[in-house]
């Protein structure tokens, strides 16, 4: 961890969905190279929190800065910011009409205006890294969930992002495919990628996170290193949550 300013800073963020207060005065900062895992019960606002960071969800009040700049409202500036923040979704969201390789090269070619040949070469290298180079010419529907999610990670990495957001990346996977995705995420974390990970994978939180953030009812209830959080949760809500998920 360096002493420079944090990469992502949320300050007093509030978000309402109609009458529903989904983010209640949330403040959080994520340092460069830090891996923050966000956990909490369903409906606690953790996915929304993750999605506000690249403004897929606009916030009602408060401020979010990324790399020292407040999030732009709309238009090209926002598109440019999004290109610097990789995002991985629960439902993969690979472009269904494009091949695996095209999924990975689309951003570099259309957003960064890279030469197709160069993008292709780097795309293949990234696919190789996530272990699916031999599927490059297939379409997403021909791959398993775990493979699709690894492609989604490669697609995000192809933009050479400053940070990666993971919104429940393993929740839609068959159990035997969770490991292969977590392996890729763990190696990313080791290489120093700044990551915000919303997940129910406590194992990943334990061994890969620098900090665990616990959310409940839209509030950020705890923010602690994983060893401390899992050994001694301070709040009743966190103790209750952990007892429910760790007892079986």
């Amino acid at each position: 961890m360096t002493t420079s300013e944090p990469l992502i800073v949320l300050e007093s963020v509030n978000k309402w969905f109609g009458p529903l207060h989904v983010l209640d005065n949330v403040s959080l900062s994520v340092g460069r190279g830090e891996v923050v895992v966000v956990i909490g019960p369903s409906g606690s606002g953790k996915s929304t929190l993750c999605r506000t960071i690249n403004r897929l969800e606009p916030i009602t009040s408060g401020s979010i800065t990324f790399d020292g700049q407040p999030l732009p409202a709309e238009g090209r500036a926002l598109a440019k910011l999004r290109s610097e923040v990789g995002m991985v979704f629960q439902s993969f969201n690979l472009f269904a009409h494009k091949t695996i390789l095209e999924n990975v090269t689309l951003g570099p070619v259309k957003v960064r205006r890279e030469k197709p040949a160069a993008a292709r070469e780097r795309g293949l290298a990234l696919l190789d890294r996530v272990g699916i180079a031999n599927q490059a010419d297939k379409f997403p529907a021909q791959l398993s969930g775990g493979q699709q999610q690894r492609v989604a990670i490669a697609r995000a990495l192809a933009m050479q992002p400053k940070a990666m957001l993971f919104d429940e990346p393993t929740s839609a996977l068959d159990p035997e495919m969770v490991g292969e995705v977590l392996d890729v995420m763990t190696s990313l974390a080791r290489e120093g990628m700044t990551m915000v990970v919303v997940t129910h994978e406590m194992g990943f939180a334990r061994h890969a996170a620098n900090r665990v953030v616990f959310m409940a009812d839209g509030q950020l209830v705890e923010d602690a290193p994983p060893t401390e959080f899992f050994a001694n949760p301070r709040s009743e809500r966190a103790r209750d949550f952990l007892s429910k998920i760790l007892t079986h």
Partner: protein
Amino acid sequence: MHVFTDPKNFDAYLSGFLWILKLTGASAGLALLLGVLLAAMRVSPVPVLRGVGAAWVNIFRNTPLTLIVLFCYFGLYSTLGLNLADSLDLNNYWLGVVGLSAYTAAFVCEAVRSGVNTVPAGQAEAARAIGLTFTQTLRIVILPQATRSVVAPFGSILIALCKNATIVGTIGVIEASSVMKDLLNENGDAVIPIFLVFAGTFAALLIPTGYLFGWLANRLAVKR
């Protein structure tokens, strides 16, 4: 069949269907371009564009095609002096193409718009998340998937367009139905055979078109 063994009549028959094919071809191309553009306008976040798109669909989808084609002739050409070609025949042809395209584009637009609804929201989110702008998202991710999901409705629209092309006969293009009317007038003894030949020719053109689009729809469908 003595009517069609007369070379003069047979040539008229051929040229009538040639006009139908030309009207259909040009109008299909224009209507597809315009219809996709209108659909893009109707799903855009800009209220003015949405308004223009909605107005176009409401006006042209709810006005009888005969009125639109007549307006193209009497309004655009006779009154406003819009001249699209030097020869009278070609000018009438292009006026017909304008009317057919404007009308058919409204149906293409609505088909594409319903196709947009079949594309999961996550596709647009993923596109925005890698930094594509709104127009890029629409052009590269949403519309290609939306149009592929409405290939079968496109087939129906094309078939309707081909049959609708006969309406351009009202502004002086000697297309198939005009030729048929002339032949009926001249050959009162062969009304049924003449009718069957023209109807049969349309069927021979359009039934395979229907199957072709059904096959294309399967082939082009986006697997999810």
